């Protein structure tokens, strides 16, 4: 793929903690992890989606002034960031597996018109829906 969305980032309050969560629990892989002074560009990838990177970024200088960073951290911590959706083959199986790993679920798997969805949060507060698409007849 030559064109399309390549990186979308999330704000997290602790990149080490986020890395552990997305890699050790969700099973993502590290794509890029580079530092320049205090700045750290960190992206991870879903193993089945090599053309897309999820950025795990920290609000703060030099990109943000301290007041802005504070606001962004607060927004993440109170769950005010936009919804994120993860596609899974089997929502209930993934739920059991992730719960076992200590993922904080906000909603148990629910059937809705043939699809099954559950909700969880990353340690920072970003909310994910995990959706299993309806089976094609």
């Amino acid at each position, binding site marked *: 793929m030559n064109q399309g969305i390549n990186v979308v980032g999330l704000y997290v*309050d602790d990149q080490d903690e986020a890395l552990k969560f997305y890699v050790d629990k969700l099973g993502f892989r590290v794509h890029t992890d580079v530092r320049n002074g205090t700045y750290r560009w960190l992206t991870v990838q879903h193993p089945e989606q090599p053309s897309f990177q999820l950025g795990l970024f920290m609000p703060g200088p030099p990109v943000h002034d301290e007041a802005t960073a*504070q*606001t962004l*951290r*607060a927004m*993440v*911590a*109170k*769950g005010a960031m936009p*919804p994120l*959706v993860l596609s899974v083959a089997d929502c209930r199986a993934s739920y059991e597996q992730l719960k076992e790993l200590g993922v*904080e679920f*906000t*909603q*148990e798997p*629910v059937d*809705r*018109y043939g*699809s099954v*969805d559950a*909700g969880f*949060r990353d340690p*920072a*507060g970003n909310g994910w*829906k995990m*959706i299993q698409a309806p089976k094609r007849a």
Partner: protein
Amino acid sequence: MPSSAALKAGTSSLDNAPREPADTEALQDPALLRRLLRAKDRMDAASHEAWPVKRLAEVSGVSEAHFARSFKRAFALPPHRYLLTRRIEQATTLLRDTDLGITEIAFATGWESLGTFGRTFRDVTGLSPSAMRVQARANLPEIDRVPACVLKAAQRPDLTTAVLEKRRRAAKATVRPSIKEVT
């Protein structure tokens, strides 16, 4: 200090408690916000259950007094009113998506009486539960491309004023005979 007028009007002493200025200030501490979010998530997951402040405070790991004040500063409405928005949202979804009777929906969404449910639902949404069922179903075809869970949240009522206050304002807006004017 309560004024004599307030006492004569029979308002409770709670209404006259001094307001802490911090109540209106937005809360910024990420660690505390994350804990409060946990309580909010728990209400979201089980809005039909009873959520006294004590239970919520335990989820967040803070004192009851601290919880109620902090929750409001974080999410701009008190926890019980937030819970109400979720119950109305859930009731609206059940009205739209199921054929459950109004009474069953009232109990399934956490109300203890059908009367309270019907009255509160109308106060908040402006429609009776049965009218809402008709309206929500009429709008269904346009919105089936939004993920169901997101759509549900988008239909949550925006309760920036207390239900009692809403009720009071609605009553004021209608012309009603006043006992005072009958002289």
